[in-house]
C-alpha cells in the first residue's frame, strides 16, 4: 500500500484525470459523445456509468482542493506532486473502503479458517498479492470492480442471493470486463433455483433475482435511459464492435507480449494470413465457450459454493486465454478468485499467483516498477511459505485430485511420487521465472529479436495458464458429492 514515490504511467493516470475533467465539466448527455468539448479519441470514456459517477465524485473533491487539476481543456497532461498524491489517495481510499473489508470479512467467514489467527494470516497473504498492489498503486487503477465482485461472492457464501446479485451488478456496471465472472454467477444462481424446484420456491427466487438485476441496472443507467441513442452510444463505447474499429483491431496483429493463446500462436504461425478476421473472431468465441461449457453445466446441475469459486477461476481463465482483445491486466480477474481459494489449495494457488504477477512483467518494467515487483513477489512467496507451509501440501489429496487419481489409478502408476514431481516442477518454474525476470531487467535483447523477453515471458505464462486451466477443470469436474463426506473424515 505504499504507493507514494512511484511514478504513474502516463496513460491510465492521464485517462482517469481526463475522465474527472469530462464528468465534472460537461453535462451527462455529452459524456459518451464525440463533441467539440469532448474528444473521444483522447482517452474517451469507455467504461460503464459507475466509473463515470466515481470520477465525478473524485472530481468534486479535486475541485475543493485545486480547480486547476480538472479545468476543461487546459489541464491535459497535468502532473504535479500534490496531484499525484491526490490521485493515489483516491485509489487507497477506494481500496480501504471496498476491497480490504471484503477480503477480511471473507477470510473470517470461511469454515476452514476457524481460528482468528488463521483467518488473519490468510487475509494478510491475500492482501499481499503483488499483482493487485502493483497494478493498483503502481500502474494506477481502481480496485472497485474487483471489490464489488468480492462482496458479491461474500454475500452468496451467506446465501444472501439478492444482495449478492446487487453487488455483482454494481461490479459489472463499473467495468464491463466483469463479464468474465458473469457466467459462473448466472449458472450458480440458476442451479440454486433449479435445486429448489422450478415450480415452487425456485421460480420465486428466480423472479426475485431477475427483478433485482433489472432494478440495479436501471438505477445505474438512469440518467442515460432518457432516449435510446444514449444507451446505444454507451454500448458502442463499451464494446467497440463498430465496423471501422473492428476492422482496425482485427487487421493489426495482436501484440505478442500477451499471455493469450492467439498471441502465442501468432509467434509461430501468422493466423491472420490463414483465416479471415471474422472467422478468427467466431473461432475465438467458439473455443472460449467450448472450454467454459463443462464447468458451467456442472455448476448448474450441482450448485455448490466450492464449485462456484472454482468456476469463477476457470471461466475467467478461459476467457483470458481464448478471447480476442485482452489486456494484460485482465489476469487480475482470474487472480482474485484464486486468492479466494487459497485456503483450499494453497500450493497451486501460490504458484498461480506468482505466475500471474510474472506475466505482467513487461507492463511493470515499462512503469519502472522492477524493484517493487521483486520485493513484493519475494515478500508474498515468503508469507505464503511461512503461513501455509505449502511445500508440505503437495500430495494428490491436498491438490484436490483424489477422485481424479482414483479413476486414473488403473492407467497410471507413477502417482506415488506425485508430490515430489509437483514440488520439483514448482521449483523449476519459479527458477525459470526468476531468471527471466532478471534477464529482462538487466540484459539487452539481441538486435534481430527486440521483443525476445516480453515474448518469452508471455509464452511461458501462457503454457502455465493452459496447464492451470486443465487442472482447475479437472478439479471441478471430478468434484462429486463425496467431497462432503471427505470433509467429515478429515
Amino acid at each position, binding site marked *: 500500500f*505504499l*504507493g*507514494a514515490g512511484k511514478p504513474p504511467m502516463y496513460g491510465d493516470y492521464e485517462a482517469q484525470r481526463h475522465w474527472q475533467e469530462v464528468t465534472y465539466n460537461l453535462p451527462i448527455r455529452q459524456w459518451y459523445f464525440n463533441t467539440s468539448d469532448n474528444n473521444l479519441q483522447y482517452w474517451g470514456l469507455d467504461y460503464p456509468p459507475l466509473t463515470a459517477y466515481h470520477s465525478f465524485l473524485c472530481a468534486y473533491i479535486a475541485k475543493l482542493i485545486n480547480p486547476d487539476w480538472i479545468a476543461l481543456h487546459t489541464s491535459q497532461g497535468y502532473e504535479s*506532486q500534490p496531484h499525484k*498524491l491526490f490521485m493515489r489517495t483516491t485509489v487507497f481510499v477506494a481500496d480501504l473502503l471496498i476491497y480490504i473489508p471484503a477480503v477480511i470479512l471473507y477470510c473470517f467467514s470461511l469454515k476452514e479458517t476457524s481460528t482468528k489467527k488463521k483467518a488473519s494470516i490468510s487475509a494478510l497473504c491475500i492482501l499481499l498479492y503483488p499483482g493487485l498492489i502493483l497494478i493498483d498503486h503502481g500502474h494506477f487503477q481502481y480496485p472497485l470492480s474487483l471489490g464489488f465482485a468480492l462482496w458479491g461472492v461474500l454475500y452468496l457464501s451467506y446465501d444472501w442471493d439478492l444482495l449478492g446479485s446487487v453487488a455483482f451488478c454494481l461490479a459489472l456496471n463499473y467495468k464491463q470486463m466483469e463479464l468474465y465472472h458473469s457466467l459462473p454467477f448466472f449458472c450458480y444462481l440458476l442451479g440454486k433455483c433449479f435445486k429448489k424446484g422450478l415450480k415452487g420456491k425456485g421460480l420465486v427466487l428466480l423472479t426475485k433475482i431477475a427483478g433485482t438485476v433489472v432494478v440495479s441496472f436501471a438505477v445505474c443507467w438512469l440518467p442515460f435511459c432518457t432516449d435510446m441513442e444514449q444507451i446505444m452510444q454507451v454500448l458502442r463505447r463499451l464494446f467497440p464492435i463498430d465496423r471501422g474499429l473492428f476492422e482496425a483491431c482485427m487487421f493489426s496483429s495482436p501484440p505478442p507480449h500477451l499471455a493469450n493463446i492467439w498471441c502465442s500462436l501468432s509467434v509461430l504461425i501468422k493466423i491472420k494470413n490463414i483465416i479471415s478476421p471474422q472467422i478468427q473472431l467466431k473461432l475465438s468465441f467458439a473455443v472460449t465457450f467450448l472450454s467454459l461449457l463443462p464447468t458451467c453445466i456442472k455448476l448448474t446441475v450441482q450448485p455448490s459454493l466450492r464449485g462456484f469459486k472454482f468456476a469463477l477461476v476457470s471461466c475467467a481463465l478461459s476467457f483470458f486465454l481464448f478471447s480476442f482483445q485482452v489486456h494484460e491486466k485482465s489476469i487480475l480477474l482470474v487472480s482474485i478468485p484464486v486468492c479466494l481459494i487459497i485456503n483450499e489449495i494453497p500450493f497451486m494457488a501460490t504458484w498461480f499467483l506468482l505466475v500471474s504477477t510474472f506475466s505482467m512483467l513487461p507492463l511493470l518494467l515499462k512503469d519502472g516498477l522492477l524493484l517493487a515487483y521483486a520485493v513484493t513477489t519475494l*515478500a508474498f512467496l515468503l508469507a505464503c511459505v511461512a503461513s501455509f507451509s505449502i511445500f*508440505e501440501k503437495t500430495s494428490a489429496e491436498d491438490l484436490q485430485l483424489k477422485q481424479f487419481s482414483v479413476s486414473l489409478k488403473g492407467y497410471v502408476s507413477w502417482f506415488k511420487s506425485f508430490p515430489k514431481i509437483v514440488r520439483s516442477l514448482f521449483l523449476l518454474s519459479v527458477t525459470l521465472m526468476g531468471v527471466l525476470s532478471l534477464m529482462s531487467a538487466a540484459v539487452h535483447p539481441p538486435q534481430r529479436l527486440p521483443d525476445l523477453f516480453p515474448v518469452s515471458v508471455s509464452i511461458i505464462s501462457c503454457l502455465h495458464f493452459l496447464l492451470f486451466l486443465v487442472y482447475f477443470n479437472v478439479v471441478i469436474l471430478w468434484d462429486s458429492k463425496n467431497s462432503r463426506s471427505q470433509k467429515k473424515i478429515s
Partner: protein
Amino acid sequence: GRVMAAGGRSWFRALALGVSFLKCLLIPAYYSTDFEVHRNWLAITHNLPLSQWYYEATSEWTLDYPPFFAWFEYALSHVAKYFDPKMLVIENLNYTSRATIFFQRFSVIFTDILFIYAVRECCRCVNGKRAAKDVLEKPTFILAVLLLWNFGLLIVDHIHFQYNGFLFGLMLLSVARLCQKRYLEGALLFAVLLHFKHIYIYVAPAYGIYLLRSYCFTANNADGSLKWRSFSLLHVTLLGLIVSLVSALSLGPFIVLGQLPQVISRLFPFKRGLCHAYWAPNFWALYNAMDKALTIFGLKCNFLDPTKIPKASMTGGLVQEFQHTVLPSVTPLATLSCTFISILPSVFCLWFKPQGPRGFLQCLVLCALSSFMFGWHVHEKAILLAILPLSLLSVQRAKDAGIYLILTTTGHFSLFPLLFTPAELPIKILLMLLFTVYSFSSLKSLFRRERPLLNWLETIYLVQLVPLEIFCEIIFPLTPWKQHFPFVPLLLTSVYCALGVAYAWLKLYISVLTERISVRQKAE
C-alpha cells in the same frame, strides 16, 4: 513442518526479512541533504589522502564524524565505484543518479544486518516471567518487533537517510554483552562505537561507572555495598588497554600528523546555535518558548522597549548564535553544567547500588535522556538514543512499559517535521499508526494482569497528538497565517513534545530513585 523444525526461530527471520523488504520499498522515497553529505564523504575519502580528510572544505558538508566512520566510508567507496564512478568526484556537488541512490540506500539496508544480529542477542538476554504459549505474546517477540520495526529508526535511516542502523546495532550488542557478563567485549564494542560517532559520548558515563563498579571491583559485601578490597588491577589495566588501543587505532594517524586540534574542532562545532533550525523537544525548547511568550507579553504590556529586541526570529530557520530577550542567555558551558548535574543522581545510584544489567540500562537511558534534555544543539534524532535501550526495559516491567509508551509516541511524533514532503505524508502516518497501535496493544496484553499502564492524564495527552497533527498538516497550510508565521507548526510540535519528553524523563528518574531507596530500606 518447517516452521517447527527451525526451533521457533523462524519468526525472527520472518520479521527481519519483512522489515528488509519494507526498507527496499522505501528506496525511491524522499531523501534529505544527509544523502549529499554521505556522497561527499565517499568522494573525500576515496580521492584524498588521510592528511586531507579533515581539512577538505569544497562542500559545505565537511567531515564531522570520528575517523572510524571515515574509514567506513572509504571501504564503501571501493564498492561504490562499481555502481557509478561519478558519485566519487568531489566537485560533483548534489550529484544524484539512479545508481547512486540505489547504492547508498542499499548500503544502509545491508549494514542493518549488524542491527538485526544485535537485536537477536538482546532477545536472548530478555526472559519473561511466565512462559507464554503463543509466540506472539512472548516478551522476546514483542521486543524484536519494537526494535526491528522501530518507526523512528525506519524513517530516519531509510527515508531521511542516515547510517544509524549499524551504530545502534553496535550499542545494543555491547549492552547485550554486558548483560551476558562478557565485560571486555562490551567495553571494546562501545569504544569502537565512540570512534564511529561521538554522539554516544552522552552515555559514556553509564558505561564507565558500571564497568568500574561491577568489573573492576569484582565482589560486593553481603549487604551489596562496595568491597574496596576487591579492586582488581588486572581488570582495570585490561580495560584501559582496550580503550587506549582503540583510540590509538582511530586517532593515532592524526596525532602523528599533528592534526588533532583540527579534528576536534570539526567534531565539536560549538559555533552552531543553542537550538537546531527545528527545536528538538528538550528543555531549551520550553525555555525558548517561555522567552518568546514573555517577550510578546512584555511588548503588549509595554514592559519592554521594542527597539531593543533583535530582529531575527529564532525559528526563522537559521542556525546561529542567538541571544534571548527576557530570560538569561544560555552558553555552551551552562548547558554542559546542566547536563552534568542532571546525570549525577543516576550515576550515583549506579555506583552505590548497582542492580546488575538492569540498573545499568536504567542509568544508560537516563544519561541519554538527560543529555537530550539539556544538551547544546541537540538534534531531535537523538531521542532514538533513549528510545531503543528503553525498549529492552519496557518488556520486563509494567512501569517501564508505561514510560516507554509516552516517550516513544512523543519522540516519534517529534520526528514528523523531518519528512515534510507531501508524498511522504501517508507513509509516515501509516507507519506511525501501525507502530503505535502495535506497541500499545502488545504491551497492554503483556502486562494485562497488572495495573493499567497509563493513567487518564497521560492518555489524554497522547490522544491530543492526533488533533495537533491534523492542525499542523492539513488545517494550517490552508490558513492565511502560513505566510506570516511559517514556523508555528514546528513551534507547536516541539513544545508539545517537549512536555511529553520532560514528563517521561522525570517519571523515569523518580521511579529509579524510589526503587533504589526502597531496595536500600529492604536491605537495612
